[in-house]
């Protein structure tokens, strides 16, 4: 494979004089992506994973359309009726529609990974995410009364759209004068980015203490119900977490809400405390992702995405306070090609 370095190195030895024209180690070092690009690549990888998961055999059956139709339950008619209509459409042509869904998501992943296509693909991913959030997730259940940070509220797919906005490739730093204090501030400015963070984590704090989640066995049942079909180690984590939550629903939901509220306020604090809040957000998101969401249920089969935990980690990383002026690397758009 010529793409690999030893092949080229061999070629270099064969024509050393010409090789000197290529010896640009400094340039090569610059090819390490900056923080925002790393996060874009993380988002791309998750989209690619989503697309591949969508190719599972279950998705080509009527079961998938029934799963979509199920998200209409509890929603107001204005939201539920289009979901039911879309589910009927999928039920009529399950193979064609699902093949299209899967391919679109694979292309979104590949497009974001490609520097030439990142901007248009991020824009397309926002449109696609919003459509799926409505027609595929019933707005994440936020209007249906059963949403919880543990089960993926406010809907994993809306976080894709949020990340596409926060990781939008722009040259400036948001306020046009000073360096952006964190990656997410670059496209929208620090104030707007902090407001987005506050709304996101604040709403999660709210969902943690809604009536359905305050019941004595609410969280226990949610976590215990995940164990079915999971590998032994993950099921054991579920059982352990469920035993901790047994008849402790109210206390657990309050503790969770307090932690989420601290995180929500954290980005308004000085950088050392903001960093602590981001670390707390990452740890909490990972705990929820593993113990509450079972890695999105991928290992049990039939999952369409890794759920919200992993995406919350990406969001949190986009708010990591920077210590220095961000690298002003060229934007990965067509003008650089």
């Amino acid at each position, binding site marked *: 494979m010529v793409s*690999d370095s030893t*092949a080229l*190195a061999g070629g270099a030895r064969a024509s050393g004089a010409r090789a000197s024209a290529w010896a640009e180690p400094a340039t090569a070092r610059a090819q390490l992506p900056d923080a925002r690009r790393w996060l874009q690549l993380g988002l791309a990888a998750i989209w690619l994973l989503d697309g591949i998961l969508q*190719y599972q055999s279950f998705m080509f059956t009527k079961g998938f359309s029934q799963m979509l139709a199920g998200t209409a339950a509890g929603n107001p008619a204005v939201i539920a009726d289009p979901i039911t209509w879309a589910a009927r459409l999928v039920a009529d042509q399950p193979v064609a529609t699902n093949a299209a869904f899967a391919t679109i998501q694979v292309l979104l*992943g590949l497009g974001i990974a490609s520097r030439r296509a990142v901007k248009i693909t991020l824009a397309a991913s926002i449109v696609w995410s919003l459509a799926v959030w409505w027609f595929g997730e019933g707005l994440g259940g936020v209007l249906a009364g059963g949403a919880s940070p543990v089960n993926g509220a406010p809907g994993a797919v809306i976080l894709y759209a949020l990340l596409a906005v926060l990781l939008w490739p722009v040259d400036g730093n948001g306020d046009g004068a000073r360096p952006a204090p964190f990656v997410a501030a670059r496209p929208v400015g620090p104030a707007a980015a902090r407001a987005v963070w506050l709304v996101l984590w604040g709403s999660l704090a709210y969902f943690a203490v809604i009536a359905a989640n305050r019941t004595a066995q609410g969280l226990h049942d949610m976590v215990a119900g995940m164990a079915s079909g999971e590998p032994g180690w993950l099921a054991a984590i579920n059982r352990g977490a469920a035993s901790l939550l047994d008849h402790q629903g109210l206390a657990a939901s309050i503790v969770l809400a307090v932690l989420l509220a601290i995180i929500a306020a954290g980005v308004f604090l000085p950088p050392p405390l903001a960093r602590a809040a981001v670390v707390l957000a990452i740890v909490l998101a990972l705990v929820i992702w593993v113990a509450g969401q079972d890695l999105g249920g991928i290992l049990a089969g039939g999952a369409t995405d890794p759920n919200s935990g992993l995406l919350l980690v990406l969001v949190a990383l986009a708010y990591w306070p920077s210590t220095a002026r961000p690298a002003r690397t060229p934007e990965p758009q067509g003008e650089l090609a």
Partner: protein
Amino acid sequence: MIPAWILDIFAAIMLVVAGLSAGRLAIGRPGSRVRPDSDIDAAHVLMGIAMAGALASSLHTVPNSAWVVVFAVVTAWFGWRVAAEVRVQGAAALGTGHHLPHLVHGAAMVYMFAAVTAAAQGSGMGMSGMAAGSGSMGTLKVPTLGLAFILFLAAWAVWDLDQIGSAHVRVRLPRLNVAPQPAVALATAGPAMPAGTVAGTAAGAAAGPASSSSASAPAETATDWLLDPRVAVACRIAMGITMAFMLVIML
């Protein structure tokens, strides 16, 4: 059950990858009898054929148990190559060395074919591909390992794609008729960079048809195109995604 035509499309892509890699092996690089990375092309040929055979029931290759042995050897080979890189460059070679993805590809193939073989023996049915049901859901007995492979393969495909654009954008390339030789310098660059990919794609950006200098360059031959490093990277991306697809439907 996944529609057969989808499996056939993936199988066709794998046959194209195998064909391109076989072409690269056959052509080689002028002036040298054996290209240093012929082993990678050979591995791609084997993997492409094996995966196409597993995906499409109409294709018959060697028995799956034989593929397990073949890819165990391939994995051991790339394990040795990675170990050699680590001896020279230290642990950083795991980030910069370019054999790591091929080692993982080989290990994933062993894992996949071992699981399919075991599933077929358990069910007592003959197997001639996933379309026949041998690679259906629940086939993988250690799904956590399968998920680890899937995540690695997806992440590396994304990284490869990014680096193609990165090299194309940032390296100021000489004209097309200058042979692509930047690997020595580029291969030792950044600590977390799979240098082979960068080096290769940097060279490919010069030699490839989409190069900014292509307008003024002499027409490329089919050989030049086939030896374009971006073709090899594209093969690796296609292979990684197809492998991840196969693992997902076996979870």
